[in-house]
């Protein structure tokens, strides 16, 4: 049998559908384990003015209560390897910036005992005005959502050369495009924050070995990445931590951040006992990272027969209260703002904006689900405004072999033309002969007007 192209059943699939696969929460140790619960911020934005866990610590069954002071390295950046500075504390220090932010964690004999201790911790807050609308983040009197300001100031990605506070992509001559255009179509597009909504909530079991090593049974999507985070927070080298990868009960990007691994490990370190932390369904929905919300404004310069000569964008990415992977998402977004089309003149501008909500994080299509929405809404609107066929506008402006993307990447095998033709045929749409005959080879012949040949062949930025 030929292995490549074979319709083999999913490896380990039978175990998943018959309930035999072991997930992290199914793991039982002979010595048992303690259970963790977290004290989370009840406010969107506040200063912590006092913290007293003495009553909580004296409750029955409580083994440890940890705060930021117990974490060997409390602030560690997920994108440290890219030179992006760290901003997010594992446990809040003297302020909270989003509802649900962890402040302290308890290890106890049962989840009930741990929760009782959490409820007995006495905290006083001084509430501050929160910021929720990214469009108001740039106002002179906007509330401050982050100690760096209301938007990421470090797009250079290198500490010694922080670079600009925005991501820019520019190619060609947008002034020419706006001048030459018959019509300029402008719209605003707002994809929502959504949940990963995995069936398995965030969960971790941290087991200290007699040797001093920390073993973490993790539901992470990226075990080496997560092992690096745990080791960094514990201040140990990579052989001080072993992450055991388990079946993942739904990830979709939401388990790239090891939300539960590190706090469970710090509790295990402190108690010298295994500790399991499993988030409730409510915590999973309200306290885990979301897909980011986006605010995108686009103006496209087009000819009356549907050639897109230029595009200008302004994008605001809702990072929430801390950066996590938002600089990555914002950059990836701008690399793809032309969609599946070759637009010779562009200026894309994007900011990663901080607000007082749960930090947004990776999710399926990270950074580009939003560009597909802006690019396709615009093409459909352009076709309507100009009374043109939306299939033909796409085929006209399609990426072709040898075309240059806005960031100067030369395309090797772009399939805009084949996928549009295939879907048109299946949908029963009859394309005009010159569009039916199109291929992904470089543009020639009837469809491309002479005066645009030079534009479409444009390489790097002017």
């Amino acid at each position, binding site marked *: 049998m030929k*292995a490549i192209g*074979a319709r*083999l059943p*999913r490896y380990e*699939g039978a175990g998943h559908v018959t309930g035999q696969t072991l997930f992290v929460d199914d793991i039982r140790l002979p010595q048992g384990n303690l259970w963790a619960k977290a004290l989370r911020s009840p406010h969107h934005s506040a200063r912590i003015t006092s913290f007293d866990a003495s009553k909580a610590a004296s409750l029955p069954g409580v083994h440890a209560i940890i705060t930021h002071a117990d974490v060997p390295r409390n602030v560690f950046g997920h994108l440290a390897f890219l030179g992006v500075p760290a901003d997010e504390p594992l446990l809040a220090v003297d302020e909270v910036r989003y509802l649900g932010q962890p402040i302290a964690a308890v290890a106890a004999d049962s989840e009930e005992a741990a929760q009782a201790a959490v409820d007995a911790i006495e905290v006083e807050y001084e509430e501050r005005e929160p910021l929720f609308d990214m469009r*108001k983040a*740039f106002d002179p009197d906007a509330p401050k959502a982050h100690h760096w300001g209301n938007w990421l100031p470090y797009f250079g990605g290198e500490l010694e050369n922080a670079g600009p506070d925005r991501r*820019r*992509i*520019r190619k060609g001559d*947008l002034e020419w495009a706006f001048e030459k255009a018959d*019509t300029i179509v*402008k*719209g*605003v597009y*707002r*994809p*929502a924050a959504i949940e990963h909504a995995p069936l398995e909530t965030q969960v971790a079991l941290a087991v200290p070995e007699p040797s001093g090593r920390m073993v973490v049974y993790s539901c992470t*999507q*990226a*075990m*080496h990445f997560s092992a690096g985070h745990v080791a960094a927070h514990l201040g140990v080298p990579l052989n001080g931590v072993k992450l055991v*990868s388990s079946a993942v009960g739904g*990830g979709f990007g939401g388990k790239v951040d090891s939300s539960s691994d590190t706090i469970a490990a710090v509790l295990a370190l402190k108690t010298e006992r295994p500790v399991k932390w499993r988030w409730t*369904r*409510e915590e999973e929905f*309200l306290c885990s990272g*979301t*897909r980011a*919300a986006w605010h995108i*404004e686009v*103006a496209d310069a087009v000819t009356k027969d549907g050639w897109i000569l*230029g595009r200008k964008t302004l994008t605001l990415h809702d990072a929430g209260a801390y950066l996590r992977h938002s600089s*990555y998402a914002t950059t990836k977004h701008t*690399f*793809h703002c032309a*969609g599946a089309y070759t637009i010779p003149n562009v200026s*894309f501008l994007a900011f990663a904006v901080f*607000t007082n909500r749960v930090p947004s994080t990776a999710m*399926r*299509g990270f950074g*580009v689900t939003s560009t597909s929405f802006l690019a*396709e*809404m615009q*093409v*459909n609107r352009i076709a309507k*405004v100009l009374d043109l066929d939306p299939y033909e506008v*796409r085929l006209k402006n399609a*990426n072709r072999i040898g075309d240059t993307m806005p*960031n*100067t990447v030369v395309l090797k*095998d772009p399939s*805009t033309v084949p*996928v*549009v033709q*295939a*879907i048109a045929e*299946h949908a029963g749409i009859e394309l005009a002969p010159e569009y039916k005959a199109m291929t992904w080879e470089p543009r020639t012949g009837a469809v491309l007007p002479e005066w645009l040949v030079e534009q479409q062949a444009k390489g*790097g*930025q002017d």
Partner: protein
Amino acid sequence: MARHKGRGLATIEYPTGMNQSGDLTQSWIKLKHDGRVDVLSGTVDIGNGSKTAHRQIVAAALGVPVDWVTVDVSDTDASPWDTGTFASRCTFIGGNAVKIAAERVRERVLEIAGKMLEIDPADLTIEEGVVFARGAPETNISVSDVAHAATWQLGGELISGTGTFVKPFAKILDQETGRIDRDPHAALSYGASVAEIEVDDETGEVRVERFIEAYDIGYAINPTIVEGQIQGGTVMGLGLALLEASYPYYPSPEHRGADFASYMAPSMVDLPQIDFLCLENPSVEGPFGAKACGEMANNGQGPSVAAAIHDAVGVWVTELPLTPERVLRALEKKAAGEDAPRVDGKWVIFDEELSINAVGAPDADVKFTFDPF
């Protein structure tokens, strides 16, 4: 009150691998002394099917039956580095890493078999777990016998091979233009989505009757798993198009759903017909021509459904999700004659009330400027 049918199109592209690349995967393959194959990999299978695909890639690259191959993603000690299961990178980047490791194991098996058969390894090949001379299949030895001999008769060798695949990190050379020094991804995949819907103009409810989903994924290592990705992605796309919002009244943080009863993820009752067209234009660098199809499968439905709504009832809804409330408000504006874009010279300006220019302070640091520069 009436129901209106509509149809809309979206076309998408999506990169394989992390943006700006540099996302490394290593793998290690070793043979047991009966020739069975252990793949030690750091690629966590989150339901994307990477273990299944990697097993098929290793079996093909090594020349053994698929059921000889075990893919083990145990822990960070046993398994070499993998950057992670994200960025649609596991079949392409992880797949290349296990393929390279399998090719090295194959090479070593051929060298040992060549000595045992006294034939130049270049004249040997492996199929279905048997090493044989090209053109003379009667001269053969099984991979099991080669592994056994290597372990117990020829000095105790562990037949193994490592493989690494990485596209080098693409540096942004110029912050003003975003010019980069190399490809920022491993490949690009393309797709298209057509939504066929019905809109109820009294309730604002939108029902999708059929999605047509076309994707060029290079080459399908396992077509069943590809179909699963496309179907799962399409349903997620339906959720983000019509139903889901962490903050139903965004930007307000109020009224968040905290369970599956109040957070509206799609369920079986929402499921439309899904027609999947799988195009295969083999990629230059992917294992056996494969490209990614994991994440992109939920990117087309938002815009294709929004286009279909316009086709059905003539209104643009540009905030996701496309809820009954938003559709009804758009229909009300249309009925009042207030839905037309503002036309200023050659500018056709939609959605002005949503703009940062309308919501932010007059002296804010950032505005959308109509100046092209």
